């Protein structure tokens, strides 16, 4: 290694944000979508590779009931969204996982389905959890209409006019998915089947493809129903209107434990993003093109923040912070770039000046002009979780204690004798087999608690170590006290993965599950985060982004 390279590497360390800063719930709950978000990764790939998209089947009747197939053809393989459109009475419409019927149901088929495949899927996909799919399918999903906007759009189009732009903007989608299942759920192909395919190796690429193709379907179905109703009078939805429509998603607590259950994945997502930020901060100059791209990204962020609505008081306060901070950033950019390492100067100013909401928005902005040093990091965001499975049981008790003191110092500081620190417990409901959050001191069921209170597990392990001599291998402890096995495995994996743990108490009275959800959804690329409660949220995906049919013709904005 040359001296210059070495000094360059040493200098990089100052640009990384430490896990103690990054992995706090309130900051994770301020995350914004950015270049490395999974839907952006998908869109970049399909554009770069020139994927072809066709609607190969449309068999939908006058009531809007039937089936359709959308084929995405890549350089090596094709994937097909199989859509089933239903006529759902309003009283059956529920976004909760306990629902049994939906406005539309979907599967992502691996390849191009035959008529027999379609018939098999028709017998199962509309049943969702109560049906079975096969290893030929990668995903299972369903969506409900945004009743008000859907009706308005169909009515307007059927009468030969475009829908009201304000209505479109206020809702932002015609349908919202209420689940997108992948990775072996309900009989679907396991992740292992697709993990080595370049186009699906980044996280959640199949799921993002499903949602993107659903977006196309939602426009087709309103055009179809408008044509049925209006006949010759009807007009199709204008492109500029369609562009403002994403796909909504409605999700509850079921999503919240994901990041806790997949620490390696969380680490790799966070590490990639933090590496991207560090690379940008380390740059010596900002070129005029980069500066222009930053201003364009700021314009888009302000437009997005202006259109972002939420009825949730907490989110309203965050939105006020965001809008004020975007204005501060705009003011700061008036005298920018200047001096050495202008990106780092901007970043340090932001850390000293902006709210967490504003800082995380600035992060997304700073990555935007830097495709060449950021985009390749998307290849580092998946995880082979089996790699961290085998415990190194030769580690001594003393070494494990040191490890816990170093990696779990945040957890060991929490006073678990305070009832407020264990006020909640995570459990799985017998009725729907879905994660729930209970109140420990007033509800039954804490004996069946899920192992998501990592801080308290770390503390319990730390205390258990006192029963064993410092120089004995942890194999001895695991033999006598096998209940420590989960936390030992986790701690060893965390020691090598600094961003793998949420550094907050997930059992605490003041913990907000929506913070976990916002972080995950931001990595998906979700916008317009709109909590309906502390445990339930609606978001929008692909809003403002191109449709499959546009991609081969034009570029990505």
């Amino acid at each position, binding site marked *: 290694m040359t001296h210059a390279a070495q000094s360059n590497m040493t200098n990089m360390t100052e640009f990384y944000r430490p896990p103690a800063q990054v992995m706090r719930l309130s900051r994770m709950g301020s995350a914004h979508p950015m270049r490395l978000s999974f839907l952006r990764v998908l869109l970049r790939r399909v554009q770069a590779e020139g994927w072809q998209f066709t609607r190969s089947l449309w068999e939908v009747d006058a009531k809007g009931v039937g089936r359709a197939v959308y084929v995405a053809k890549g350089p090596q393989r094709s994937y097909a969204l199989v859509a089933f459109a239903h006529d759902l009475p309003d009283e059956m419409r529920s976004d909760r996982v306990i629902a049994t019927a939906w406005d539309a149901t979907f599967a992502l088929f691996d390849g191009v389905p035959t008529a027999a495949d379609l018939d098999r899927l028709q017998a199962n996909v509309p049943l969702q959890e109560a049906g079975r799919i096969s290893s030929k399918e990668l995903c299972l999903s369903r969506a409900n209409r945004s*009743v008000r906007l859907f009706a308005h759009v169909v009515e307007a189009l059927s009468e030969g006019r475009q829908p009201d732009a304000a209505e479109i903007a206020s809702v932002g989608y015609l349908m919202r998915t209420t689940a997108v299942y992948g990775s072996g759920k309900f009989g679907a192909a396991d992740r292992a089947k697709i993990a080595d395919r370049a186009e699906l190796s980044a996280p959640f690429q199949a799921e993002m493809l499903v949602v993107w193709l659903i977006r196309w379907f939602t426009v087709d179905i309103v055009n179809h129903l408008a044509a049925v109703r209006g006949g010759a009078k009807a007009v199709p939805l204008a492109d500029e209107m369609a562009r403002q429509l994403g796909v909504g998603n409605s999700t*509850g607590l079921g999503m919240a434990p994901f990041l806790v259950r997949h620490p390696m994945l969380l680490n790799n997502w966070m590490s990639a993003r933090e590496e991207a930020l560090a690379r940008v901060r380390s740059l010596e100059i900002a070129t005029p093109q980069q500066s222009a791209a930053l201003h364009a990204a700021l314009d888009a962020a302000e437009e997005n923040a202006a259109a972002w609505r939420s009825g949730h008081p907490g989110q309203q306060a965050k939105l006020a912070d965001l809008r004020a901070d975007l204005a501060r950033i705009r003011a700061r950019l008036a005298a920018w770039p200047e001096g050495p390492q202008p990106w780092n100067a901007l970043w340090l100013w932001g850390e000293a000046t902006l709210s967490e909401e504003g800082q995380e928005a600035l992060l997304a902005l700073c990555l935007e002009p830097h495709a060449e040093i950021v985009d390749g990091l998307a290849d580092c965001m998946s995880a082979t979780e089996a790699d961290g499975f085998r415990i190194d049981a030769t580690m001594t008790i003393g070494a494990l204690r040191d490890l816990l003191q170093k990696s779990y110092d945040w957890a060991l500081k929490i006073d678990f004798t305070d009832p407020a620190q264990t006020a909640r417990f995570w459990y799985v409901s017998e009725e729907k087999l879905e994660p729930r959050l209970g109140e420990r001191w007033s509800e039954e069921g804490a004996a069946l608690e899920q192992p998501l209170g990592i801080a308290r597990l770390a503390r319990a392990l730390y205390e258990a170590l006192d029963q064993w001599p410092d120089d004995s291998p942890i194999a001895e402890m*695991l033999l006598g006290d*096998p209940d420590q096995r989960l936390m*030992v495995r986790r701690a060893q994996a965390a020691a090598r993965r600094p961003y793998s743990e949420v550094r907050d108490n997930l059992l605490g009275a003041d913990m907000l599950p929506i913070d976990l959800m916002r972080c995950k959804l931001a990595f998906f690329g979700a916008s317009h985060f709109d909590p309906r409660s502390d445990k339930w949220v609606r978001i929008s995906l692909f809003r403002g982004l191109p449709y499959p049919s546009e991609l081969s013709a034009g570029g990505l904005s």
Partner: protein
Amino acid sequence: MKIEAGVQARLGTAVPEAMLCPLSRSETEGLAFKAARGAGLGWGLAEEAAFATGWLAAQGIDGAGALLACLVARMSRPAAPPVMAKGRWSAGEGRALCPLATGVALVDFAFLEDGPFAAKTALELVHLPVLLLPFLSQVAIAKRQTVRIDWNGHVFDLGASLAVQGAAFAKFCASPAAGLSLSLGGPLPETPVAPDRAGFAAVSTYTLSALESLALRTTVPATEASRQGGAGAGTSDND
């Protein structure tokens, strides 16, 4: 519980196709994880049970059926950790070793000085020896050497996955094994490609419902309050 009867007999026997449920690996492992926890195992050991079940199913072996039998045995009499004497592991008191507890301990101790693979180690009597295989394969991968199983004059070499081992091997898998000893064999052959779903062992409807009933023990019954508040929804979705 009505699980005990006939579980052993089902191991390794052919089940009519109509009674088989082809689960994905993630479903198989998820079910095994929850069932193991429902049967009283710690979360970390339940993770090992899930790994073992998924590994066996990927080799075309009914891991779920074996796990069920193991859990049932543990529920009727809690498993004690193996008693480790140099060159000989036993359960003590004339009992059979639990393959999960033993398998996990074999992996944990494999890299310690004087560990079980430092020299030949006899396992006195092992219940459901088939459940040892996933753990022995972990040892083989980590040691980059095959694990040699000596059983009543038969020798099986185990690597990262299971090569076809013949009738004696099937017999070894299907019944409690006495006279079993372990040692390291030759260098590990190249890892074969994981089989597709076609070779993945399905779960019998019997095993499925028994494991599901164990899994249900990890869940909390709903109350009206939890139904309304638990997922945080509750408002109308007709907007």
